[in-house]
């Protein structure tokens, strides 16, 4: 990485802020920006996964306390996603930079479409779930959550559709360093009929595992710069924290659209540069 850790921290904070408000995650924005600024895709990828892991860890306590995470569903899908991220990370060092850049640009475009197409805020403020019954049913991929004061039971279906989507998200994460949450959450909610709130929380839980697996492989490959990673880590936590607070103050639709357009621009720059 050519970037100084402090610069990475600032970029990561901005990306996490926009990403959290835009609902696409910070890495989906940070990694393409780093590449557009001149970083090699293989060097930017570990920084991206640090941002993903930091975001997952920062949200983990809150979401576990809410009871919205479906651990059984998350780990079932993570069987595929972990395999994908490990495979992606291993092969990414042998892939031409252009291929990695194209995967990254493709991920940025998908993230842009996800941000532009979304109609509601996926991660709602935490307070509304306080003292509500929510949980998963042991031995099943079903559970229940609270919506507007009512208990809503749900049952995940079509696991055969969710597993390939998780595998693809994992491979993309391993190759490019973006988390792939913008693939996992829609796959869970649209293909597997899981409520969006549960899908988003479960995705955040699984992204931590995906990112950890990818980062460990990167570390073994000697691709992790500790100080740049520290900068990204601080920026991701601070930016995510700020994003959660300004989410209620700014028009989310405008920010999502701006983030989507920015991602399209960045994807174009990444493609043009390679």
């Amino acid at each position, binding site marked *: 990485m050519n970037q100084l850790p402090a610069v990475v921290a600032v970029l990561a904070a901005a990306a996490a802020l926009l990403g959290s408000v835009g609902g696409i995650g910070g890495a989906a924005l940070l990694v393409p920006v780093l590449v557009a600024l001149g970083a090699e895709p293989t060097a930017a990828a570990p920084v991206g996964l640090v941002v993903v892991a930091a975001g997952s860890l920062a949200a983990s306590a809150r979401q576990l306390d809410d009871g919205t995470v479906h651990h059984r569903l998350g780990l079932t899908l993570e069987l595929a996603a972990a395999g994908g991220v490990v495979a992606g990370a291993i092969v990414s060092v042998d892939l031409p930079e252009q291929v990695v850049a194209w995967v990254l640009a493709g991920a940025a475009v998908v993230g842009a479409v996800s941000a532009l197409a979304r109609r509601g805020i996926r991660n709602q403020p935490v307070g509304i779930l306080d003292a509500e019954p*929510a949980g998963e049913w*042991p031995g099943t991929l079903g559970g229940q959550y609270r919506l507007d004061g009512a208990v809503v039971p749900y049952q995940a279906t079509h696991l055969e559709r969710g597993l390939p989507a998780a595998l693809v998200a994992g491979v993309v994460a391993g190759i490019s360093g973006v988390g792939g949450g913008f693939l996992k959450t829609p796959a869970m909610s649209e293909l597997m009929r899981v409520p969006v709130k549960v899908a988003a929380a479960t995705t955040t839980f699984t992204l931590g595992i995906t990112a950890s697996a990818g980062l460990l492989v990167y570390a073994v490959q000697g691709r992790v710069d500790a100080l740049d990673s*520290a900068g990204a880590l601080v920026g991701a936590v601070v930016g995510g924290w700020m994003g959660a607070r300004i989410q209620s103050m700014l028009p989310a639709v405008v920010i999502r659209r701006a983030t989507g357009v920015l991602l399209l621009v960045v994807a174009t720059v990444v493609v043009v540069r390679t």
Partner: protein
Amino acid sequence: MNGDVAPDAERGPVDPKAGRFDRVVTVLRVATLLVLVLAAVALVVGGEVGRSAAWVALAVLCAVPLLRVAWLAVRWFRRGDPRYGLVACGVLAVVAVGLTLA
């Protein structure tokens, strides 16, 4: 999540507190703070000390999710849900195999 119920238990409302894991939540909050402080120290101090602090932060960052999976595996095996206990073990095995291959 109500881990005391057998896998084939009748589906229905669960204990409102069943999804809460107070101790794990506390551990996750402490881990988040620890990682943030270590990374901040690494940024401010720099040099070899900063690099060491950054590596420790990264180690904690990577270890916490995997330890959470291990905890879930143990919990599910103990509470009569071996199928998903095996799933959790499978995730850890995939990561281990990946590290070996890398």
